[in-house]
């Protein structure tokens, strides 16, 4: 297993593997998202309290989950780059940042559209909403800090440090509905024991989760290849990898 880890530190290996994985991730993601979306929008039973508006859950919750998952990936990858000085770590962190930021924006916007009919307002300074907004600012901060340095290695390290400092926000977002009297509803799926949702509503949601995760993998692979190329373009292996 350690050989596999060592391979992950090798830019050419990562480049080739990402290229090979992308079509798989993309195809499976398309299937999962299509199934989840069609099932969730057309066939899942209407919610007793929220009517058809609850169907926003099928895009909102996977986006929110992905926004937190991506930030954690970015922080871990940055830590790998900072502590063990593995450049691929920095490449992963740089690749994840814009993806995670876009999903954070999606979570905020779709949540806002859900909030209007349900709570009567597009926005509230609620713990979860506020901490998700903080997450967006953190993403923007990390993405702005990296290119501000003349030396790209230094920029990577500074961005990694900022990402690590900000990761404390992720558990705050997740537990905000537990720790505070939040407008936002508490966890229904990620609970120990039975989820609170009936199966016919739950399966499309799980399919969307899976689809979004696979999609994240696909886009990450594409961006990661770009990041690796940018950092390694003077290296010898690049000649064969991209053909001269």
């Amino acid at each position, binding site marked *: 297993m350690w050989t596999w880890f060592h391979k992950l530190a090798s830019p050419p290996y990562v480049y080739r593997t990402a290229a090979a994985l992308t079509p798989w991730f993309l195809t499976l993601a398309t299937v999962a998202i299509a199934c989840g979306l069609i099932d969730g929008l057309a066939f899942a039973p209407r919610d007793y309290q929220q009517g058809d508006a609850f169907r926003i859950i099928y895009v909102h919750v996977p986006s929110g989950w992905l926004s937190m998952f991506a930030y954690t990936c970015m922080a871990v990858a940055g830590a790998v780059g900072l502590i063990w000085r593995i450049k691929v770590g920095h490449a992963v962190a740089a690749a994840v940042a814009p993806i995670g930021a876009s999903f954070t924006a999606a979570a905020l916007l779709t949540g806002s559209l859900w909030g209007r009919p349900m709570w009567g307002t597009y926005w509230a300074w609620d713990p979860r909403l506020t901490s998700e907004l*903080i*997450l967006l600012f*953190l993403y923007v901060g990390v993405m702005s*800090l990296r290119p501000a340095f003349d030396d790209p290695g230094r920029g990577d390290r*500074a961005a990694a*440090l*900022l990402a690590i*400092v900000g990761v404390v926000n992720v558990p*705050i977002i997740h537990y905000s509905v537990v720790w505070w009297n939040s407008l936002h509803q508490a966890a229904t799926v990620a609970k120990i024991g039975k989820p609170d949702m009936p199966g016919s509503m739950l399966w499309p949601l799980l399919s969307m989760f899976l689809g979004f995760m696979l999609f994240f993998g696909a886009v990450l692979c594409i961006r990661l290849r770009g990041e690796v190329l940018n950092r390694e373009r003077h290296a010898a292996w690049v000649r064969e990898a991209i053909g001269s």
Partner: protein
Amino acid sequence: MALAIPASAYGTMMGSLALGTLTLSWLGAIGAGLTVGLKRANVLLSLIVLPLAMPLLIFGAGATDRVVSGVSPAGALYLLAALCVLTCTLAPFAAAAALRISLE
């Protein structure tokens, strides 16, 4: 005095300011360490410190707000103290690492 809050709120306000100032100083140190020597450091500094300082601002203002409305500010003050302790213990390492990155 300032902002026309009742005298009973002064204690809480001073407490939240004391805790908040300490926390904010350390958060600023991290931000400064990361942006020292950069062009447009001031914009980046605000961008970095803002999300880190938001919880602090929310609880700090919340504490005074609560005592003015007559509700106990204890919860907000405890959280403020927790943020302060967290920052004071961990921020020095982060700020040192930031300086190392910026200046090595």
